[in-house]
């Protein structure tokens, strides 16, 4: 398996001139399933959006496979929260997955046999082949999430950035989605998912990133997912970890 990695160097992103993510440096290796943890307003969505070039970077750069990222790319797929999608959109599951091919074949390229096959494979991998002809609102939450994954798979993405994929799913749907994600990871892809339910972190993810405006901690779940880091990350305001420790010393 090629050891691809997504390198984030000194990334700072501001939202309306207020910095939301400060000087984050991370080296994420493909073949991992990583949880992005942090309280509301910690900058998780902003972080994702900066990685795919949806919001401008104040400082820093994002490098994938040796190429600097300037903006949009088919290598990195961003999957927004389910709630921002208009599920009444007149499209079938298959049609939605086909959209993943559009930027690969260009505006006017023919949608050929290879494209059709890529869509079939993506649908099968995500266990959606039987539902392919359904309108997207006729899917359950977990199936919708998998349909998104299938779309990114058809796009031949290597990095999947998922914004709260497990939110609102029951146990069964969660397990099926986790299975689907594991398949992606086993195939050498990198999956980063923002996540709220701390209880399920160890069973779902092998690495964790704690983010709260700045990077709090990053590492294997076994070592890094501990009470100290959780407490650090979920403190309401973290300006700098060094600052916190200094404060702690004063009191």
């Amino acid at each position, binding site marked *: 398996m090629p050891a691809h990695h997504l390198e984030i160097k000194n990334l700072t992103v501001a939202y309306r001139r207020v910095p939301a993510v400060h000087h984050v440096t991370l080296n994420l290796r493909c073949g991992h399933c990583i949880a992005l943890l942090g309280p509301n307003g910690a900058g998780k969505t902003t972080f994702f959006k900066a990685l795919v070039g949806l919001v401008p970077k104040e400082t820093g750069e994002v490098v994938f496979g040796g190429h600097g990222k300037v903006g949009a790319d088919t290598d990195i797929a961003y999957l927004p929260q389910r709630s921002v*999608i208009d599920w009444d959109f007149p*499209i*079938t599951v298959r049609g939605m997955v086909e959209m993943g091919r559009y930027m690969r074949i260009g505006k006017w390229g023919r949608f050929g046999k290879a494209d059709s096959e890529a869509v079939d494979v993506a649908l099968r991998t995500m266990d959606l082949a039987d539902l392919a002809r359904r309108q997207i609102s006729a899917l359950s939450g977990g199936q919708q999430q998998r349909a998104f994954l299938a779309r990114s798979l058809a796009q031949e993405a290597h990095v999947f950035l998922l914004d709260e994929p497990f939110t609102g799913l029951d146990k069964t749907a969660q397990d099926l989605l986790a299975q689907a994600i594991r398949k992606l990871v086993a195939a050498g892809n990198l999956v980063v998912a923002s996540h709220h339910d701390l209880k399920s972190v160890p069973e779902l993810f092998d690495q964790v990133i704690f983010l709260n405006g700045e990077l709090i901690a990053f590492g294997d779940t076994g070592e890094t997912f501990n009470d100290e880091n959780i407490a650090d990350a979920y403190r309401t305001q973290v300006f700098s970890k060094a600052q916190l420790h200094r404060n702690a010393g004063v009191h």
Partner: protein
Amino acid sequence: MHWLTEPFRHEFMLRALFGCALIGFTNGALSGFIVLRRLALMADAMAHSLLPGVAVAIILFGLAPANLFFGALVAALLVGLGVQIISGSSRIKEDTSLGLLFACAFSLGLVLLSFSPSQVNVTHYLFGNILGLSDDDLWIIYSISLIVLPLLVLFQRPLLLLMFEPSVAASQGVFVRPLTYMLMGLLVLSMISSLQAVGVVLALGMLIAPAATIYLCSDSFAAMFWGGGILGMLGSCAGLVVSYWLNLPSGACIVLVLGGIFFAAYLFSPRYGVLSKFLRRRHLHEESLARWEEHADH
């Protein structure tokens, strides 16, 4: 078939039929994008904002269709730009600045029209006069359709991505802003092509009703696009025939026919119709009751 052929023995009716078919198809095809991108209110505001441009064009250059066209285009661009500037540089949101500018623009148009040397009727601007189409009018309608339709077909894929989820589309490399502006531009163009024929207010009906109807009947975007075009075309022509026989204003008849078809779909569409859904629910209810009783019998 006498009732169908009789009206078109008159030349003005034949011209009107041509105009209806073309405008109906173009606006109908465009309506899919308006409905899914949720631009219906924007279109409404735009429609009224064209008036000052039209008024200035009449005062400065006279009442020729080409002048009206450029006047309207400039007015639309200015209002569109103004909305972006105001909402981008202050805490006023887009809908507020749009609503405000549209009211101001329309009023400015009325004031300007009072200075116009020739007799210009605002009702004409709002409701059009499809029975008085000149050759120039038909040429403008024809050329605008020739611009709008191919562009929609050519950019169908990126437009589809954009409408489904703009931020995902942007992350995939779709140029969201230019595409949105293009869509707005096409909207203004087709509005202008409808100006003389059905007037701006009724043009709105043609820009919304066809796709809204198909949206209630189908889950395919292609159906919304082509079906919207065909429905817009047939509905407009039907409205024209109705207006001839009932001796009623043609623009209004066209939109009422389209509106009537929409309400029929709203009630009776097999998939998303309100009545069909209600009947289906009853049916399920009875089925479960029957099963319950059967179960109790055993």
